């Protein structure tokens, strides 16, 4: 800061303060209006207005950029000749004309290059370690939910179990809502809803009474607790999202139906496989037609035009 003792303003270098001020412009307002139109039209799903807004934004954005860069564009670019002349001056006096790597240039390049190499060698693995584990080897574990006989036909149960062996007890607990729909084409049919609200992830609760007494089932993964219940639907405590008995959204901010789990039967025991997302469910029980999609985060649409915007991923 010591070298700042000279007040910049007193050096006489900023005589004309307006020199770099862009002239006041009306175009940004038109641009903002266009953008606002697009956003509103997206919400009310009116493609005509989207197009009008986009055109407005493009036109005014172009005019704005043109106005803002007028000064820059007016200045002619520096003569390339002037540049080379500068460089030549720095070169040694001995061999004129012949461009040669000067010692200072070489040292400058070497310092920057070696510095960048060392920096890269240290930084890249560290950043990789910070970021990559969150994306690699991320798999849902398969969970044994006990013998089929624990699930009477058409009886809803709350199942509480350890969802993963990788997490400590308190965090590993998962909840699913399960109903056995009887045999369908010779195989047992289950409805298994995830309790993760598809608005923003709070735990969805059954509407209606749940048994206080748990039925304990021994499993390898630390046991499953089953509570009988007779829900009329499901509701979310966070922002009032509501779902019907098949998980279809009936009210509130959720954007699709409740996620479900795939399942399989092994040696007469129910096994929970990975979860998947659901657009809509038609019909109920074993006849239900489920619009299934790969699992996505809460808040993301899986169907309709919104699927391209929440979130937009190119």
């Amino acid at each position: 800061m010591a070298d700042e003792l000279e007040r910049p303003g007193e050096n006489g270098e900023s005589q004309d303060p307006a020199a770099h001020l862009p002239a006041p412009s009306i175009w940004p307002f038109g641009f903002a209006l266009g953008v606002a139109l697009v956003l509103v039209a997206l919400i009310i799903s009116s493609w005509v207005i989207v197009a009008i807004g986009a055109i407005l934004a493009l036109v005014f954005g172009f005019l704005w950029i043109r106005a803002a860069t007028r000064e820059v564009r007016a200045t002619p670019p520096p003569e390339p000749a002037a540049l080379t002349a500068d460089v030549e001056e720095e070169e040694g006096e001995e061999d004129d004309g012949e461009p040669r790597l000067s010692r200072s240039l070489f040292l400058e390049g070497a310092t920057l290059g070696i510095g960048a190499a060392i920096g890269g060698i240290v930084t890249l693995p560290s950043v990789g370690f910070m970021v990559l584990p969150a994306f690699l080897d991320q798999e849902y574990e398969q969970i044994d939910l006990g013998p089929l006989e624990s699930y009477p036909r058409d009886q809803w149960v709350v199942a509480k179990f350890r969802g993963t062996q990788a997490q400590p007890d308190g965090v590993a607990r998962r909840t699913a809502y399960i109903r056995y729909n009887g045999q369908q084409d010779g195989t047992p049919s289950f409805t298994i809803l995830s309790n993760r609200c598809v608005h923003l992830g709070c735990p969805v609760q059954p509407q209606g009474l749940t048994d206080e007494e748990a039925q304990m089932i021994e499993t390898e993964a630390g046991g499953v607790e089953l509570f009988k219940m007779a829900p009329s639907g499901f509701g979310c405590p966070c922002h009032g999202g509501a779902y019907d008995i098949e998980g279809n959204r009936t009210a509130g901010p959720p954007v699709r139906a409740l996620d479900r789990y795939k399942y399989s039967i092994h040696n007469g025991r129910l096994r929970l496989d990975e979860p998947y997302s659901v657009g809509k469910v038609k019909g109920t029980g074993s006849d239900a037609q489920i619009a299934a999609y790969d699992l996505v985060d809460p808040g993301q649409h899986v169907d309709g035009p919104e699927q391209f915007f929440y979130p937009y991923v190119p």
Partner: protein
Amino acid sequence: MPKTKSKRQQQIEAVALYPVDWLEERSGLIGGLRYFLFRKVPAETNWFHTLGSATLTAFIVQAVTGVILAMYYKPSAELNPETGKPIAYESIETITNDLTLGWLVRGMHRWGASVFIILLFLHMGRVFLFGAYKYPRELNWLVGAVLLLMAMGEGLTGYLLPWDQTSYWATVVAININANAPIAGPFLGDFLRGGQEIGSETLTRFYSLHMLVIPGGLAGLIALHLYLVVRLGITPPPWTKAAGGYEAQPNGGRPARTGLVNPSPRGNGNGGRERRES
């Protein structure tokens, strides 16, 4: 030095000044400090100009209390086998209920967090309403905007640390909101969670972000912010003559409202037009 000073007084003064001189000769730091403290500012400043320093003070309070809390807090989601409670939650209970003055320091940090954010917005509001973001201070506004984002990041990451029901589910919701951002959203969600589901990695990485990464960035950017404030000078309030870029003239000069479209340039803190005798 006034002649009235006795020899003894002069001796004491010399002894007191010696270390200051020693430091100045070897570092120039004292001169730098004097430059910072005694630089010229507009003749008409007002209390709203103190909001930036108030924000800085709040940040320092957060830093100091946070460092002390980190001496007792344990960022672990494991359950204590004896009590069945998560260790992170228990360590917060210990700080609040058992440790001497722990309740006070935790309270300062928790309430101070809100004070910090509120002051940030007030400061930003004053900069906006004074038109102090205009040329040549656009860059400092941008630095400030990043500061605001990082401060809100502090709020998000800190809120999870007590590891109780409120903080857990609030964080679930907040991460899912982030995961809906365009383009980067899904990756951001996985990065923040440390995987597909919120768990013990989320707690440890939020802890690291909360006490190392973001505060470090904040401190560096605050230094840059203040450097720019000193370099560019402070904007006088828009209703003053100086803001219009004009000296007081017998006829009253141009209306002060000009300051809104033609803000004061950097420099001598006096509208840039007048050049002071140095």
